[in-house]
């Protein structure tokens, strides 16, 4: 665990050593603001809730999370530091966990900086802060799932752009499997059981509960399973480098 933490610290520092971190944070906050207040019609809704805020997260993360995670392994491969890392006395798991953790902490920081929306909604009304907490938890898990997928795609290639595109496509599948227009289309020819089975693989289906303020163990397990599976896939990919 100590080694994983040393790697995580290094990785986190490297986010802030380049403009990447600051560009990412500013864009993330601008876009959450735009989606919540303009596109999400926060004020027109007249509700003391953050539905307008969390509802956009699966789509917002679709582009931003792969951008934050694409360099994780691709850059190590390109620069040759992967060789340095894997000849150190550590297990591949410690490296994978450390890197994943660093990028997740980074996203968590971006998410924490959205605190003004919580303040705003509390000033204007009396929202259910438990539900807001659930929303944040779900959002963090959602970002973690996308990040783990990005880890796997990033381990596949030494090219960050390829890692980014593969990751966006994979995450898009995770959204579309449970996206209403798609499930409606599927329902025309598939049995309801099949539609539900496919939708069960979607992050949207499982994020819904958190958005409404319900922390369901099944949804929690779903996100943890996606993270676990994707990180295992990363391990397999790196072993067969």
């Amino acid at each position, binding site marked *: 665990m100590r080694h994983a933490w040393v790697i995580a610290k290094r990785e986190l520092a490297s986010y802030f050593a380049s403009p990447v971190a600051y560009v990412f944070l500013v864009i993330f906050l601008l876009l959450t603001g735009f989606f919540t207040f303009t596109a999400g019609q926060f004020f027109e809704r007249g509700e003391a809730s953050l539905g307008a805020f969390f509802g956009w997260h699966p789509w917002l993360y679709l582009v931003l999370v792969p951008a934050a995670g694409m360099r994780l392994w691709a850059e190590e491969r390109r*620069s*040759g530091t992967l060789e*340095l890392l894997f*000849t150190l006395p550590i297990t591949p798991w410690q490296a994978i966990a450390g890197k994943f953790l660093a990028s997740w902490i980074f996203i968590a920081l971006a998410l924490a900086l959205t605190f003004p929306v919580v303040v705003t909604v509390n000033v204007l009304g009396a929202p259910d802060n438990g539900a807001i907490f659930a929303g944040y938890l779900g959002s963090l898990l959602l970002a973690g799932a996308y990040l783990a997928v990005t880890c796997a795609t990033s381990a596949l290639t030494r090219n960050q752009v390829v890692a980014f595109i593969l990751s966006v496509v994979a995450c898009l599948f995770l959204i579309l499997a449970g996206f209403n227009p798609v499930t409606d289309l599927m329902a025309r020819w598939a049995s309801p059981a099949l539609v539900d089975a496919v939708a069960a693989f979607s992050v949207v289906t499982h994020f819904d509960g958190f958005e409404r303020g319900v922390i369901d163990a099944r949804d929690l397990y779903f996100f943890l399973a996606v993270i676990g599976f994707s990180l295992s896939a990363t391990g397999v990919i790196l072993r067969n480098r």
Partner: protein
Amino acid sequence: MIRIENLVKYFGAKRAVDGISFNVERGEVVGFLGPNGSGKSTTMRMITGYYAPDAGRVSVGGHDLAEAPLEAKRLIGYLPENAAAYTDMTVHGFLAFAAEMRGLSGDAKKRAIASAVERCFLASVLHQSIDTLSKGYRHRTCLAQALIHDPEVLVLDEPTDGLDPNQKHEVRNLIRELGKSKAVVFSTHILEEVDAACTRAIIIDRGRVVAQGTPDELGRPLDEVFRRLTTSDTAKP
């Protein structure tokens, strides 16, 4: 310290390393010679545990790399080809990272960094970011990383590649010095380095050992011996 038996590594259908065996004991500096593409780097990557061999065994300090990789890797300091380093870090930050990954902390870490910095003449660039360094400094930074935990085994892949004559001289002296108490293997295709630093040389060609011995045993002049034993990459297959 290093024992290698019948190492084989395929890349696709190509047998890049074809049954290499040798031992390196403490107090030896072994020069690993061969033309480009003869399997030097691949062999070194198997010794350090980066590649898993398709057949054969590697053991370092009595620890088999397949069975006890962490114990074996703890004993090794490794300078990869092209001296890869995290270029966004400062020299000090990078060495501190290497020290922490080797389990050093507190005073032990400070002492390890100070000694590696002194050995590799890095004091003047200590707080400079690695991507601003010249090739020679970058190379020495990576070498310092390999020495940080005072390892018993050193594996250096072309340690003098890209250095100017003065720097080459310094690095050879350093290698000879380190070889008194450690087991050192370094690869090169510069034949004068064999005389300058090695106690023994191993010449490989197309993945096989074609000669080994002290520079005197191999015969003189060395470059004629080398050319007779190895295949030029312009030769017809």
